[in-house]
C-alpha cells in the first residue's frame, strides 16, 4: 500500500513531462491527458484514504522510502514520503479540487492555442504541491515548495506576451523567493540544532532544544509561510497574480498553494509549541492580514482582485488559528479545507461570468446577470453564503471555531485577536455582499456600451481570438465548466457540517497536531451570536450602499481609505520606492564602481608601466659608446661589489 504514495506524485509529473515534451502532436488530446492524470492521482488518494481509515487512529501513518537523495557525512537527505492524517487531508483537497479545475479548464481554455502547455503546467503544479504535502523532511518539502512557486510563475505568466502578466509572474516568484530564503535558513538552523531535518527526529527532539533556537527556526518558518501564503508583509504579489487565467487563480491562488504556509506552520506544530514568542508573531501576522485583505477586498472593482483580497483575509484567519497553538491547529486546517471548496467555487463562478462577458472583469460593468446565467448565480451564491459564514454552511462551522479559539487564547491577547476576527467577519460579509450585488443584481450596466473598457486592468486576451467586439450578450457556460462549479458548491454547503458536527475532523487530525480546549471567557453560544450580529451588520451596510442605490459604472473618487485600499494600501508603492528604485540605483552605481575603480586600478597600473617603459626606451639611443659606458659602469660596480664582499 505504501508504494501507492509515490504514484500520487508520479502521475501528474508524468503528465507534465509528456505534455511539455510532446510537442504539437498532442495538441488535440493534451488537455484530456492532463485531466486523466490528475484524476488518476485523485483515485490513488482515495484508495490510500480508505486504507488509512482502516487503521486505528494511532497508526494512521504510511511511510515510503524511495532513495537516498543527498548523503554527505551527517547531512542525510532522503526522498521519503509520509502520509498521515494531515497529509491525506491535503492530498484529497488538492487532487479533488485540482481535478475539478482541470475539467473546468478544458472548457475555459478551449480557444487558447497553447492549451496543451497550460495543462502541462497545471499537472506540474499538482505534482509539486503533492510533493510538498507528503514530503517526510523539510528539504524535500522545500523542493515541492519551490516547485509550486515555479508552477505559479509559469501559470501567472501564461499569457507571456502581456508585459503585465510577465511582470506579475516575476514579482510573484521573487517575493516567494524571499520567503523561501526563510525556509532554507530554517532548514540550516534545524541541521545545526538537531543534526537532521527529517520530521520524525526533529519533532521528537524539539523539546530538548533551547527556546532561542526554536524561536529562530519558528520565525524563519513564519517568514516562509508569509511568502507563500501572501501574508503581510509579503502579500503584495497575490493581487497581481490575478493576471493568470482564472482556473489558475482558483486552484493555486485560492484553494491550494497559498494555503501551503498554513500547512507548514501546522506541520511544524511541535516547534512552534516550544516557541511562544514566535506563536504570538504568527497570530499578529494573521490578524493584521485578515483585516488588511478584507479592507483591500472592499475597494476593488476588479472581481478577481476583490476575491484575491478575500483569499488573503481568509488565510489570515487560518494563520491566526495556527498561531493559537493546539487550540487552533485543527480549525486552521478545517477552515482551510472548507475555504478550498467555496473560494474555488467563487473563482470558478467569476471565471464563468467573465467567460460570458467577453472577459470583462470590472464589476461596475456587470449587473443583473442572475437571469442570464442561473447556474453560475446559484453556485456563486452558495459559495457566497458559505464564506460569510451563513448558519449551517461550511464557513459557519470553520470560521466560528476559529473566532472561538481566538477568544479561548485567553487574556487581553485573546480579546484583541477575537475582536479582530469578529471585525474581519463583518467586513467579509460586507465586501462579499458587495461583489454579489454588483454582479448579479441591480440594473444591467453592460447594456448599450462598447465591450471591455480598455483600462480594465487584467483583461484576458482570450477575447481577441474569440473576435467579439459587439455589446456582450451574457450566456451560461458549457456543461464542462458548470459541473465542477456545482460539485464545489455542494462541497461548500455540506463540508463544514460534515466536519464540524460531532467534531469528526477534530478527532481525525488530533493524533497529528494535538488539541487542547482553551478556557474561553465567552461561551460558544455567545461567540456565535456575536458573529451573527457582525454578519448582519456587514450585509446590511453593503445592501444599503449597493443594493438600494444604482451603482455608478465609473468608480467614484471615494474616501482616502478607499483610494488607498484600491492601491493595496500603498504597500506596492512602498516596495517600488524603497526596493525597486533603491536596487536600481545600487546596481547602477556598482556597475560604475566596477568599471572605474576596480578596473581602473588595473588599467592605471598598465598605463603607468607603459609610460615608464616609454622613458626607459630613450636609454637605447643606439650609440655603441653609450652602451660601452653602461657596460663599463657595470664592471666598476662589480669590482666594487667584490671589494665590499671581501671587506665584509
Amino acid at each position, binding site marked *: 500500500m505504501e508504494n501507492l504514495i509515490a504514484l500520487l506524485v508520479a502521475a501528474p509529473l508524468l503528465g507534465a513531462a509528456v505534455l*511539455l515534451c510532446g510537442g504539437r502532436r498532442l495538441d488535440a488530446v493534451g488537455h484530456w491527458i492532463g485531466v486523466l492524470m490528475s484524476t488518476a492521482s485523485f483515485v490513488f488518494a482515495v484508495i490510500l484514504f480508505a486504507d488509512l481509515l482502516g487503521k486505528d487512529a494511532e497508526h494512521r501513518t504510511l511511510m515510503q522510502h524511495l*532513495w*537516498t*537523495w*543527498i*548523503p*554527505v*557525512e*551527517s*547531512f*542525510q537527505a532522503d526522498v521519503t514520503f509520509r502520509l498521515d492524517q494531515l497529509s491525506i487531508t491535503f492530498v484529497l483537497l488538492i487532487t479533488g479540487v485540482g481535478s475539478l479545475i482541470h475539467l473546468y479548464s478544458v472548457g475555459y481554455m478551449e480557444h487558447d492555442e497553447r492549451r496543451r502547455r497550460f495543462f502541462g503546467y497545471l499537472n506540474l503544479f499538482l505534482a509539486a504541491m503533492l510533493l510538498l504535502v507528503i514530503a517526510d523532511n523539510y*528539504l524535500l518539502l*522545500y*523542493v515541492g*515548495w*519551490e*516547485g509550486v512557486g*515555479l508552477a505559479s510563475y509559469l501559470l501567472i*505568466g501564461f499569457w*507571456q*506576451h502581456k*508585459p503585465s502578466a*510577465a511582470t506579475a509572474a*516575476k514579482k510573484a*516568484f*521573487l517575493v516567494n*523567493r*524571499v520567503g*523561501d*530564503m526563510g525556509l*532554507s*535558513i530554517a*532548514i*540550516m*538552523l534545524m*541541521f*545545526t*540544532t*538537531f*543534526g*537532521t531535518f527529517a520530521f520524525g*527526529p*526533529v519533532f*521528537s*527532539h524539539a523539546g*530538548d*532544544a*533551547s527556546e532561542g*533556537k526554536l524561536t529562530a527556526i519558528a520565525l524563519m518558518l513564519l517568514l516562509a509561510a508569509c511568502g507563500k501564503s501572501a501574508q503581510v508583509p509579503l502579500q503584495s504579489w497575490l493581487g497581481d497574480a490575478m493576471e493568470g487565467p482564472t482556473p489558475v487563480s482558483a486552484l493555486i491562488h485560492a484553494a491550494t498553494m497559498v494555503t501551503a504556509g498554513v500547512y507548514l506552520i501546522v506541520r511544524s506544530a511541535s516547534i512552534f509549541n516550544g516557541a511562544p514568542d514566535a506563536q504570538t508573531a504568527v497570530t499578529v501576522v494573521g490578524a493584521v492580514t485578515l483585516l488588511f485583505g478584507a479592507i483591500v477586498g472592499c475597494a476593488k472593482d476588479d472581481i478577481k482582485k476583490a476575491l484575491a483580497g478575500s483569499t488573503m483575509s481568509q488565510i489570515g484567519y487560518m494563520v491566526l488559528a495556527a498561531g493559537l497553538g493546539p487550540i487552533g491547529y485543527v480549525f486552521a486546517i478545517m477552515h482551510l479545507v472548507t475555504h478550498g471548496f467555496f473560494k474555488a467555487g467563487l473563482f470558478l463562478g467569476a471565471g464563468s461570468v467573465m467567460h460570458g462577458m467577453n472577459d470583462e472583469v470590472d464589476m461596475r460593468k456587470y449587473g443583473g446577470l442572475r437571469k442570464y446565467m442561473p447556474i453560475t448565480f446559484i453556485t456563486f451564491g452558495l459559495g457566497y453564503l458559505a464564506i460569510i459564514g451563513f448558519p449551517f454552511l461550511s464557513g459557519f462551522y470553520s470560521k466560528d471555531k476559529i473566532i472561538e479559539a481566538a477568544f479561548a487564547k485567553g487574556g487581553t491577547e485573546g480579546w484583541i485577536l477575537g475582536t479582530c476576527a469578529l471585525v474581519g467577519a463583518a467586513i467579509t460579509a460586507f465586501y462579499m455582499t458587495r461583489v454579489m450585488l454588483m454582479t448579479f443584481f441591480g440594473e444591467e450596466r453592460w447594456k448599450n456600451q462598447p465591450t471591455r473598457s480598455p483600462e480594465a486592468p487584467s483583461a484576458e486576451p482570450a477575447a481577441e481570438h474569440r473576435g467579439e467586439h459587439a455589446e456582450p450578450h451574457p450566456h451560461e457556460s458549457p456543461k464542462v465548466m458548470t459541473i465542477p462549479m456545482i460539485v464545489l458548491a455542494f462541497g461548500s454547503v455540506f463540508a463544514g457540517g460534515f466536519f464540524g458536527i460531532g467534531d469528526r475532523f477534530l478527532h481525525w487530525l488530533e493524533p497529528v497536531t494535538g488539541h487542547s480546549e482553551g478556557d474561553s471567557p465567552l461561551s460558544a453560544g455567545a461567540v456565535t451570536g456575536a458573529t451573527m450580529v457582525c454578519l448582519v451588520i456587514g450585509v446590511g451596510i453593503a445592501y444599503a450602499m449597493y443594493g438600494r442605490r444604482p451603482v455608478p459604472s465609473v468608480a467614484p473618487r471615494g474616501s482616502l481609505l478607499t483610494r488607498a485600499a484600491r492601491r493595496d494600501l500603498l504597500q506596492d508603492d512602498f516596495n517600488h520606492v524603497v526596493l525597486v528604485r533603491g*536596487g536600481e540605483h*545600487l*546596481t*547602477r552605481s*556598482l*556597475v560604475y564602481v*566596477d568599471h572605474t575603480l*576596480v*578596473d581602473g586600478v*588595473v588599467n592605471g597600473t*598598465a598605463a603607468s608601466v607603459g609610460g615608464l617603459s616609454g622613458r626607459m626606451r630613450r636609454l637605447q639611443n643606439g650609440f655603441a659608446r653609450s652602451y660601452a659606458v653602461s657596460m663599463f659602469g657595470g664592471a666598476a660596480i662589480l669590482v666594487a661589489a667584490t671589494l665590499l664582499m671581501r671587506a665584509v
Partner: protein
Amino acid sequence: MSFPLLTATAVLPAIGAIATAAVPAARRTAAKWLALTVSLATLALAITVLVRFDPDGGRYQLTESHAWIKDFGVRYELGVDGIAVALIALTALLIPFIILAGWHDADPLETGSRRWRPTQGFFALILGVEAMVIISFEATDVFLFYIFFEAMLIPMYFLIGGFGDRAHEHGEEAASTQRSYAAVKFLLYNLVGGLIMLAAVIGLYVVAGNFSLQEIAQARANGSLHMATSTERWLFLGFFFAFAVKAPLWPLHTWLPNAMQESTAPVAVLITAVVDKVGTFAMLRFCLQLFPEASKWATPVILVLALISIVYGALLAVGQRDIKRLVAYASISHFGFIIMGIFAMTSQGQSGATLYMVNHGISTAAWMLLAGFLISRRGSRLIADYGGVQKVAPVLAGTFLIGTLATLSLPGLAPFVSEFLVLVGTFTRYPAIGIIGTFGIVLAALYALVLYQRTMTGPVKPEVSAMPDLRARELVVVAPLIVLLVFLGVYPKPVTDIVNPAVKSTLSDVHKKDPKPEVEAVAK
C-alpha cells in the same frame, strides 16, 4: 607497469589537437569531425577512469610516477582522487558539446571581411586546452601542475583574441580592438597570478626539497616537515593569489566579463566552465593540503571576499545590458559560492563546492550556449534588442528557461543540491556568513528572471519575428545537458559517493571536524 590511463586521457586530445591543426585548409569539415571524434574518444577514456576509480580505495589512484628533472626532484607524477575524477569527467564531457556548439563559429566570414578565421586552429586550440586542463587535474607534482596551469593561457589567449562573435553591434574594427583588449587583459591577469605562484613554488622547493604533493602533504601531516608560520603564510598567499585570479574572486574578477563578452559562446563556456575550475580545484588540492595552518589563518578574509563576490556579482549581473556580461557576472557570483564552500572547512561545504564545480559547469554550459544560439540568430548581444522570443521559438525559449532555472538553482535541478550543501556547510560554522550568502539566492532569481523576461516574454519585436527555432545540431547540444541537470538534481548520489572520501581526507589534512549539532536527534 599497467596501462598509463591518466597519461592517455591527457595525451589523446593533445595528439588530436596536432592532427586537427595539420588538416589542410581546404578540408575544413574533416577537421571538425576529427576534433569531435577525438573529444568523444577522450570522453570514453575519462569514463574508463571514472569506472576504474574506487571511491573507497586509496586516496590517489591510477598513479603514475617517473623521474623527470632529477636535479630539482621534479617528477612526472599523476594521480586522481575523487574530486579530480569528477572534474576530469566534467571536462571531457563538456568539450564535445563545446565543439559541436562552435561548429560554425570559426568558418571563414563572408567575403569582404578582412578577418582571417582558421577553422582548424579553432578546434585544435580547444583540444589543446582540454589536454592541459585534464593533466593539471591529474598532476600530483606541484611543478608539473604549475607548468600546465600556465601553459593553458596560450591557447586561451588565441581563442579569445582570435575568434569573436560573427556579428558585432559596433562593427568589425571596434570588435577586433575590444577582442584583443579582452585577450590581453585575460593574459596579463593570469600571468601576474602565475608569476607570484612561481615564486611560491620555488619557495616551497627551498623549504620542502621536492615538489611531490603527496610527500610534502605526508611530511606536513606527520610533522616531519616543519614550516615557520610566516613562511607557510607567504607561500599560501602566493599559491592562493594565482588561484583566486583564475577562479575570479572579487576584486580580481574584472578580466572575466571582458573575456566572456568578447569571445564566442563556446569559448566563453570553455573559460568559465572548464578553465576556471582549475583555480578552485587547486585551492582545494594544493592550498589546503600543503598549507593547512595558513589556510585556516586566512579563512575569515577569504570567506568575506567570497561573500562579496556572491552579492557583488549578482548585483552587477542585474545591472548589465549585455547578455554575455550578465552570464559572466552570474558566474562570478557562483564562484563566490564555490570558494565559500571550500573554505567553510566542513564536509558539506567542500563536497558541496566540488559538486558545485560540476553542476555550475553543466548549467552554465547550457545557459551560455543557448544564449549564444540566441545571439547568433539576432546578431546582437544587447538584451534590449530581444523580446517575445518564446512566441516565435518556443523550444529555444523553453530550454533557455530551464537553463535560467538551473542558474537560480531551483530545487530539482542539479545546482540546487550543491548550493544548498555549500550554504549549510558554511552555516554550521559561520551562521552570519551563511545567512548573507542566502541573499544570493534571491538576487540570482532576480537577474536570471529579468534576463528571461526581457528577452523571451512580452510583445514580439519585429527583428526577432523571423527567428528560427533550435536546429537539430543545437538540440543535440542542449538536450543531454538538460537531462544531466535534472538527473544530478534528483539523484546526485553517484557524484557525492565519489567525492565524499576525498573531501574527508582533505578535511583531515587541515585537522578540522564538522561541528556537532546541539541536540543529538539522530542515533549514530
